[in-house]
């Protein structure tokens, strides 16, 4: 979209020849669209208008890495009590080694109750989230494809199980730019241990390097070297950066199509601008005590995730388009009660606080919150360590996720899983439809938001998908 068409290299020339007259017509059409579409095309991250009016302008993606159990959170299966510890065998090509062999059903260690005016289901450990239940749209029909963590993480984050493709946040910043040019458009708040699959989960893939996610460190200073070293004034720094940029630009003239080089130039400029803006934004200590308390900051169980949620709000408030917040360790193959119980407690208050805070600031209308793992969990478990373990295996056929804010149907449960929670059976959609729906809420059409790479126009959903209409208000 930001490619400069005045310079032609050999490859472009050949492409042009190859597609001949048709390309002439098409490129003039495209040029027209660019003219009306992108109002100001200065930098690659300049804000640009959505294709149609958007319901959401910002996204906070709460990523529960490891695969949270839908059965023990928002999709209770009381039938499992009846079958608890009933043994059975499962074989077949369709099932992974993990879900084959001797198995037994496991009931949920948590009771569940209806909360909010809308009467949606929530397991007991969710205490604070119940206060904002009526803001949430629970979706039970989504299906992942992969049973392995890294591939499933790549799938939900980039639309492709193999990785190496642009992440959701990259696609959105490619389509819309940032509202605040002093900050990156796509920020990631990972755990100390990066998720399985590593930084590939927020990679720009084949998109220009400007669109990669910027991770902020979870411990210590969120961005290293944000302040000039002692003894270097801002004036000196500016001078030396100016020299560096001049050299880089000279170099760039010889390589006009070198993506990484132009991204590097852009990054230096962004970094310089960030020095002004970032220290304020990432400093959550400046928030008043009541707000910190709202997110559970300062309390042992919730401090880590609470800080990240509060930071996410501050970033969105400053115009960052896409913030991904990770919570890790949801892979409960055993000790379900303790593991899931603690994790739920660690996110419960922070997420409730986030929703309340966005709501009172009038930001929830335009901010889409997504809560999801990379897949769901099974209703049964395999024999582990020669005995019964109260846990659950990976389950791509059923998962739990929810949305809040930005144009979704608040206080609704959409879709359903079967009576044991093994498989989605109503309003069933593959992950790519979630991606298409996300872009749709941002006023972007998955079929039109494409990037020419490897000989074809690539898109987030890989080959098209459907909008999940039922979740849209």
């Amino acid at each position, binding site marked *: 979209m930001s490619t400069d068409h005045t310079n032609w290299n050999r490859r472009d020339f050949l492409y042009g020849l190859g597609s001949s007259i048709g390309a002439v017509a098409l490129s003039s059409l495209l040029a027209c*669209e660019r*003219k*009306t*579409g992108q*109002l*100001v095309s*200065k930098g690659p991250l300049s*804000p*640009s*208008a*959505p*294709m*149609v*009016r*958007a319901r959401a302008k910002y996204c906070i993606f709460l990523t529960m890495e490891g695969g949270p159990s839908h059965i023990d959170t928002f999709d209770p299966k009381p039938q499992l009590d009846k079958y608890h510890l009933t043994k059975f065998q499962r074989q077949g090509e369709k099932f992974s080694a993990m879900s084959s062999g001797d198995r037994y059903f496991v009931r949920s260690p948590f009771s569940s109750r209806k909360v909010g005016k809308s009467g949606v289901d929530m397991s007991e450990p969710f205490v604070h989230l119940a206060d904002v239940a009526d803001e949430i749209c629970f979706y039970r029909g989504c299906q992942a494809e992969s049973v392995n963590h890294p591939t499933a993480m790549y799938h939900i984050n980039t639309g492709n199980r193999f990785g190496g493709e642009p992440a959701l946040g990259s696609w959105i910043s490619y389509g819309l730019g940032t*509202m*605040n040019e002093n900050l990156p458009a796509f920020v990631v708040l990972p755990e100390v241990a990066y998720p399985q699959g590593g930084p590939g989960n927020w990679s720009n893939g084949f998109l220009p390097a400007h669109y990669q996610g910027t991770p902020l460190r979870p411990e210590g200073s969120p961005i290293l070297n944000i302040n000039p070293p002692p003894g270097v004034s801002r004036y000196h720094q500016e001078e030396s950066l100016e020299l560096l940029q001049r050299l880089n630009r000279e170099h760039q003239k010889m390589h006009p199509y070198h993506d990484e080089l132009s991204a590097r130039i852009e990054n230096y400029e962004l970094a310089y601008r960030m020095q002004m803006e970032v220290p304020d934004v990432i400093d959550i200590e400046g928030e008043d005590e009541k707000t910190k308390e709202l997110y559970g900051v300062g309390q042992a169980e919730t401090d880590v995730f609470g800080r990240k949620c509060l930071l996410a709000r501050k970033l969105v*408030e*400053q*115009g960052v388009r896409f913030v991904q917040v990770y919570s890790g360790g949801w892979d409960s193959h055993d000790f379900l009660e303790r593991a899931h119980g603690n994790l739920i407690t660690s996110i419960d208050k922070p997420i409730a606080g986030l929703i*309340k*805070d966005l*709501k*009172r*600031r*009038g930001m*929830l*209308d335009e901010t889409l919150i997504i809560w999801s793992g990379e897949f769901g969990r099974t209703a049964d478990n395999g024999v582990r360590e020669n005995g019964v373990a109260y846990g659950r295996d990976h389950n791509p056929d059923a998962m739990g996720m929810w949305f809040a804010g930005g144009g979704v149907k608040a206080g609704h449960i959409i879709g359903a899983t079967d009576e044991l929670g093994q498989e989605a059976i109503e309003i069933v959609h593959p992950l790519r439809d979630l991606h298409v729906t996300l872009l749709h809420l941002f*006023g972007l059409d998955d079929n039109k938001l494409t990037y020419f790479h490897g000989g074809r126009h690539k898109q987030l959903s890989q080959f098209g998908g459907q909008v999940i209409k039922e979740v849209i208000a």
Partner: protein
Amino acid sequence: MDFLGAFHPLVLHVPIGALIAAFLLEMVHYFRKSQALDQSVKIVLGFSAFTAIIAAIFGIFLSQKGGYQGLTLQIHQWSGIGVAVLSTMFFFLKSRLNSQSVWVAWGLNLTFLTIAGHFGGSLTHGEDFLLKDAPDFIKETFTSQNGSPLFIHPDSVDVFLDIIQPIAREKCNSCHNTNKKQGSLDLSEASTWKKGGKSGELFDPENTMQSLLLHRIFLPLDHEEHMPPKGQEQLIPSEVALIEWWLEHGMPFDKKVSDLQSNSRIVQILNSNFRPLDPYQVITVDPVDQSILDEFRANGITALTISRKSPLIEIRLAGVDTIGSDKIELLKKARDQIVKIDFQASGITNDHLKEIASFPNLIHLSLQQTNISNGAILNLKDLKYLQHLNVHSTSISDESIADLMALDKLRSLYLWNTNFSSEGIEKLKLARPNLELGELN
């Protein structure tokens, strides 16, 4: 005579069908001349003429019975008689006409038939029967746009004109209109509602819930006085609830929803029926020149159209310390196109807002975390599309309540962290029960 009159709706369809059949036969005859066809045309035409006369006579009987009057009836009556006379003359004179005059005669006959048919339909089914269920694009072509579209908040809806009248139009006016006053009752305008019908006044102030109007509605469906009569489209429960609610408040004709007390059921019904029109779709303006947007950008103003095809513009000045009158002057270059301005944490002042208030199409205004104060809200009173106002973390207080209440298009208002008292908030909630106030704690 009344007895025969009742057969008018039955008989009238015969000449319509027969006349059209005769015309079709004539067309076939034109292409494939044959003696037999010519004979057939004559026979069917004769039959049409005969039944048209009967239909016309029965029609006159029916009109004598009463309940129908007005221009619609006049047109229907004379065009119907026209069909009878014309087709009879045509039948007797046809053999003497040359081939050209035959087609003229057909044209005349069918025109009268169409007019009689259409106005007959209007008498029975109501004036707008033809277009009532037509797709919107057809409706827009054929009906004039009068009255302002409903992009107002449910609270500002006129109870009689916008709620009761449309129900009556759907369910009552086909029998109770100015032309056809069944039971001498006309439910087409406020004055005739007040008058009532043969059985008396509709509203009984002594005993509201036993008023004639409700009495007839609540009679069992099989009862011959039940309204609407069995076989006709019935009122649905939400409509009955709205009528009941209206009578409970004394059947007022000049009140707005906010003037009447509404319970949660009424609020729910109103919200689902009176979803305000989306101003984003109502506002039509030309796009501004690209150079203006470039100028905005050069001056540190983030400006975007709301979509790639829309001329409407969103402005972001969040965090800009010094707004200054130069920036405001600049924004005026797109005053008609700007629908949203985000002044969050900027240096906006009450004085700037006076200028902003002259942007006629502003829908969304964010003033949170700024130094604006109580006088600010009064400036916004003329913004006819203003739906969202954010003033959280400002010094706005109870003093602004009256000014806020005057913003009757407002749908969401963010007041967290302001100087409002809880009594003030309650007062606002009471006055504007549908206003979204977000989270306040």
